[in-house]
Every structure is written in structure tokens, then in C-alpha cells.
């Protein structure tokens, strides 16, 4: 199943204003893997994710999705394979109703109408929001918006699911529900997050990013519990470790 692979080869990215957001980033995510990207604000996580589906193209280096390089020509194919859930759901829900929004992707993929409806219902059911189908997005709570944004991407049945800060702004129960939902997605997952506890629960592997460079890449259990590394990356230990630390 080679099409669930994402590979970065010496990727650098410089924003038009000269900000060097990524420097020589290389890694490879294979089929079915769940990988977390962690790092402090401004580390380059969002930039990295935008490179994965060609919203921006590398200044130098190459991004491969299932052996296909991400270029202007391959964009439609790439975007069908890589589903990206953005940091702020308000940016992602642009259609007038929830149902239409979730249908946006499948319709653009050229699916026939019955299949679009089926996909929409299936995706909304999965995130527990089927009852919100006819609501306009501005009448949803933050957690509901997030769930619907995820449904919009799930409805496209991507091979690789990419998420930016999935748990930001969710209450504990919504966060728990999200974690359980993501556990059911068995394709490759790439999750950028500050929520190291969520990372520990979902992602066996973790890439630590700091000022645009890969600081470490390895088992999440090892990296996130390594006090020195975490400190060097400008992060804080996961709460579950902090708590057990104070108890002993």
C-alpha cells in the first residue's frame, strides 16, 4: 500500500517576507503510522502541514505522497489523498449549512449525487453530528465546529489524515470523544499539537520541531518523557507525567 506514504526530502521553506520557516527537513511516514509533530509556537508545524497537500510548495527539496512528488501538476491527485483539517474550524466551514459543507469535498471529487449524500451522512454520523446537518455553521459551538470540519475531510476518504491542533478549544469531554474518533481512523495520521497527552495516546511516533528544524524523531514515549529534550524544544512535559512526578 505504497500510496499511504509521505516523504520529505531536505525540504526548506522561506515565506515571501524572508522568514525561514523550515530548514532541511527530512522524514518518512509509512502506511498506517500515526505521527505527531510537536514544537513551540512558530516552530513551523503549520507550514509543514501545508506542504503536505501542496498549499505551498517547497523553496527547495521535495515532498512525496505515495511516490508522487507534490507539484502544481499533481495537486488534484495529492489533495484527494491527503485530507487536511485546519487549526481554526471557522476557516474551514465556509458553506452555508453543515450538510453542504461536508458535501463540498465529495462533490468536487466528481462523485455522483447519491454517493455524495451517503458519504455526508456517514461522515457526520461518525463524528456524532448528523442532527446538525441543516444548521448554518455560525450556530454551532466550538467543539461542534471542529467535529464538522473533521467530517468534511473524512467524507473525502483520504488515505492520509493531517490535522493541525485538533484538540485546541475543546472541553475535556469533546477532547476525549475526538481522541476516540481518531483511534478509529486506521490510515496514516499526522497530527500537529501542543497537547502532548493527546499525542501520547494517539501517536506512537513523534517528530520534535524547533525553529524550523527537526530536533528529534522517534518513539513518542521516549522523546516526550525526556526532560532535557523537551526543555530544549521549548515545551513542557505532558501533564500525566508532571502529575505523577509531584505525587512521588
Amino acid at each position, binding site marked *: 500500500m505504497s500510496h499511504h506514504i509521505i516523504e520529505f526530502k531536505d525540504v526548506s521553506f522561506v515565506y515571501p517576507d524572508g522568514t525561514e520557516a523550515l530548514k532541511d527537513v527530512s522524514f518518512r511516514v509509512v502506511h498506517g503510522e500515526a505521527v505527531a509533530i510537536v514544537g513551540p509556537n512558530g516552530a513551523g508545524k503549520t507550514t509543514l502541514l501545508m506542504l503536505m497537500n501542496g*498549499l505551498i510548495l517547497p523553496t527547495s527539496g521535495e515532498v512525496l505522497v505515495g511516490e508522487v512528488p507534490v507539484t502544481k501538476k499533481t495537486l488534484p491527485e495529492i489533495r484527494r489523498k491527503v485530507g487536511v483539517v485546519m487549526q481554526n474550524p471557522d476557516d474551514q466551514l465556509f458553506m452555508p449549512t453543515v450538510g453542504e459543507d461536508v458535501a463540498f469535498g465529495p*462533490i*468536487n471529487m466528481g462523485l455522483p449525487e447519491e454517493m455524495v449524500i451517503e458519504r455526508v451522512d456517514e461522515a457526520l454520523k461518525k463524528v456524532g453530528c448528523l442532527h446538525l446537518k441543516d444548521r448554518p455553521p455560525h450556530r454551532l459551538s466550538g467543539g461542534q465546529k471542529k467535529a464538522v470540519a473533521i467530517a468534511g475531510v473524512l467524507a*473525502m476518504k483520504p488515505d492520509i489524515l493531517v490535522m493541525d491542533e485538533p484538540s485546541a478549544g475543546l472541553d475535556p469531554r469533546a477532547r476525549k470523544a475526538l481522541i476516540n474518533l481518531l483511534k478509529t481512523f486506521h490510515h496514516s495520521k499526522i497530527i500537529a499539537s501542543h497537547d502532548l497527552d493527546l499525542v501520547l495516546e494517539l501517536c506512537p511516533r513523534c517528530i520534535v520541531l524547533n525553529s524550523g528544524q527537526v530536533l528529534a524523531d522517534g518513539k513518542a514515549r521516549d522523546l516526550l518523557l525526556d526532560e532535557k529534550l523537551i526543555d530544549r524544544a521549548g515545551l513542557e512535559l505532558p501533564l500525566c507525567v508532571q502529575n505523577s512526578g509531584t505525587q512521588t
Partner: protein
Amino acid sequence: MEIANSFFNLGYLDSLSYKKSFIHRLDPRIKTIVTLTFVVTVVSFPQKELSGLLSFFIYPVFIIALAEIPLGFILKKLVIVSPFVLMVAIFNPFLDKTPVMELYGITITTGWISFLSIIVKFILTISAALLLIATTSFVGICEGLSRMRVPEVFVVQLMLLYRYIFVLVEEALRMVRARDSRSFGKKGRGIKTFINLAGILLVRTIHRADRIYSAMLSRGYSGTIPQKRTHRIRTKEVFYLIIWVGLFILFRKYNLSLAIGQLF
């Protein structure tokens, strides 16, 4: 939502449009055409005509009753816009002092009649427009427009405007609150901060537009936004249209309120 509410009362108008009455369920195109004919016939009345206009009140009353729109809400909106109309109409009585009749010793001039005529026309047209919006969801209006062959660019613009005006108003109000909470009742040091705030809001909006466009691309956007096509005009609705248009023309041609008045 509560913030947007206090500002434009948009939220309330919006929530009215999600009710499910007979009027709400009518095809948006039918409602738009009826409203347009209503407005055109009302406006086409000569300036010195007053009594003929009165029959037209039947339409807003009908809609308010059937669609269960709170009368108070419409009245409040009318009061809010009324100063502008008064400004336009107020000169008529002074400019035109030709007497038409005498009522209980007071001379009524043509000026006063045309003054009242403008006010009545204003009440009728504004309330008809408000009632259209209050009984048709915005999605419906967009769908109607696109099916009446309004170019897609405009429809999509409207759609996005509707979607993001709520987000934008909230963002602006958050910024104003942040300013007020740090300026200790001094209105945040006047116009300078205000200009700064407006600038920041503009930049944020541009960035947001960028991100929305990214999100659209991520989901395969290639230049067209799929429009919903749920409504189909039923024969019942065609009758609704014919009856109203017929009535409006009738009201326009024959002064029914005067005729009824003379019967008694």
C-alpha cells in the same frame, strides 16, 4: 451570537428565517418575485395618492400573521430607519400649500398628502423587504438567485459574506472589548487607537481570506461552488404568485379602499 445580536440584530433576523411556516416553505423565487412586484406597484403610485395605497397593507399583515413574525420586531426596525424618510418627506408640506379639503376646520394641503403618501410607501416597502428576509433563509435566497441566473460570482460573494459577517463582527467586538478593558473608560485614547484597530482587523481579514481559500483548495475547489438545488416550484406556489400579483395590479388600478369606504 449574542454579540452580533446587540450590534445589528442580524442574529435575530437570521433565527426568524429558520421557522417552518407555510410562508417559510415557499420557494424563494416565488417570494422574491411577489415582493418585487409589491414594491414596484407601491412605488409606482402617483405622489398625491394616499387612499389607494391602504389596500396594500393586506400583504404584510398576511405574511406577519401566517409566518408568525413578531409585529414588534418589524415596527422597531421601521422606527430605526424612519428619520431618513422623515427628512425626505418633511419638506413637502411647506413647498406645496394647495388646499384640497377641509377636515374639522383644518385645511389639508396637497403637501401634507404627499408627505403621508411617502411615509406609507416607505412603511409598505421596507416591511415587505424585511418580511422577505425574515421568512427566507439566506441559503434559500442564494439558491433562488442562482436559479434566476444571477452570475455565480455574486451568489458566492453573498454566501461567503453571510457566513463570515458573524465571525467578523465577533472579532471586531472582541478587539473593542480588549481595548476598553485596558483604557479605563477613556475610550481607548480616541481616534488613533481606532484607526489601529481597523487596520489590524483588515489585515486579519485578509489573512483569514487566505486561510479560507486554502481550506477550499484542500477540498478540491476548482473554481465552482456547488449550489444546492432542493426547491422545485409546485403548482400551489404558482397560484400563490398569480393571486398576489393579480391583487397588486387590481389594487393599483382600482381604489378599493375608497370603494369600500363609499359602500358604508
